[in-house]
């Protein structure tokens, strides 16, 4: 072993924390991107169909960068595709919010807005990451997230402050999705390590600006914020995904599971 340096335990831990963090970023965009792509060809009007497909495409493009870097950091030779298609439910690190079913168009748009509000704030902070690779991906992705939140916020307002029917549907969507918001702002040891190294902000630090944006849009949309303080969690740590993720993966990963190793 002469001359070969053995990585210290703390270095290995830092590497695994970074890998975990990158999976969280990439799995959020992957799972939401897939969910939104389920609308392709089914949206209520052509313009919205195109908008949903384009949003999904942006998110999946961002996934390639996050999971590509995750594979590089892990150093086991796994590509972004390997990570996307060859992991099982418990290996996914996305927020529970993004794996929730599409529901009606209103629920899809509300889920998108809640995610976008967080995403744009997170990416903005990540452009100052101490890790130049992360800052570069964030600099690219934040441009896309900025117009995502503009559209999803405007559409939430239009539908919430719309007809009696659209208002009722948006309120029902908000009541259903609200408990999934808290997970965005819950930190753990991985987040602490990222914040300590200046790689990413602590999730708690995003709560005030993100909630300010969300509350302003919901107020303009004439929607009532549910009183429940209960927050569902377990997605970003992988300890407890909802049943929906497994069903999503049966579709998304079908080809690689039926024909392992298939390539173009």
């Amino acid at each position, binding site marked *: 072993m002469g001359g070969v340096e053995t990585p210290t335990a703390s270095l290995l831990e830092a590497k695994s924390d970074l890998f975990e963090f990158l999976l969280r970023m990439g799995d959020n965009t992957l799972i939401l991107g897939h969910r939104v792509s389920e609308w392709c060809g089914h949206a209520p009007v052509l*313009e*919205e169909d*195109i*908008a949903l497909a*384009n*949003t*999904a*495409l*942006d*998110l*999946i*493009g*961002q996934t*390639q*960068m996050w999971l590509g870097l995750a594979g590089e950091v892990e150093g086991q030779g796994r590509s972004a595709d390997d990570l996307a298609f060859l992991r099982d439910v418990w290996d996914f690190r996305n927020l529970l919010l993004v794996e929730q079913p599409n529901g009606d168009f209103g629920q899809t748009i509300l889920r998108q807005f809640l995610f976008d509000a967080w995403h744009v704030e997170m990416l903005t902070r990540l452009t100052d990451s101490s890790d*130049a690779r992360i*800052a*570069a*991906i964030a*600099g*690219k*992705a934040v*441009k*896309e997230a900025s*117009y995502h939140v*503009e*559209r999803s916020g405007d559409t939430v307002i239009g539908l919430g402050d719309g007809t009696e029917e659209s208002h009722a549907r948006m309120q029902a969507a908000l009541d259903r999705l609200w408990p999934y918001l808290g997970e965005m702002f819950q930190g753990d040891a991985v987040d602490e390590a990222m914040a300590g190294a200046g790689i990413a902000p602590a999730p708690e630090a995003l709560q005030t600006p993100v909630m300010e944006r969300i509350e302003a849009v919901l107020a303009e949309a004439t929607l009532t914020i549910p009183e429940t303080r209960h927050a569902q969690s377990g997605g970003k740590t992988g300890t407890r995904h909802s049943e929906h993720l497994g069903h999503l993966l049966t579709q998304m990963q079908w080809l690689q599971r039926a024909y392992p190793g298939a390539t173009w």
Partner: protein
Amino acid sequence: MVAVAPSTDDVWEWLDLVPDPEIPVISVVDLGIVRDVDWDGDTLVVAVTPTYSGCPATAIIALEIEAALRARGVEDIRLETRIAPPWTTDWLSQKGRARLEEYGIAPPRAAGGPARCPRCGATDLERVSQFGSTPCKAQWRCRDCLEPFDYFKCI
């Protein structure tokens, strides 16, 4: 036989003949996605940046650049993806902007919307959708000639 490596100026000129696969009236150079051309020993290195991270044309563009250079006799080519600084519509060439408008696509403007209808030149316009037929475009409509048109989004 002595092979003389083409100058990077020549390479830029060749690349300016490679059309964007989705908007063929402008070249990949007009679009501003070719960031750098340089020789690394005997290898020609071309740095390309994606417009949008999920743009499906990115892979086709890489193929077309490589094919165009091979057709000119360059054999040793390395394409690099460069994401920072991120692509901006500020990098569209003046020639590219003019060609977009002639083609019926309103060029991007810092004001966030088209200056005039690319078909009739009228200025009474409305946005139909923030998203259009490709990630880089939005849909607008002229209230004068009533025709819909694409607007190249400013990012």
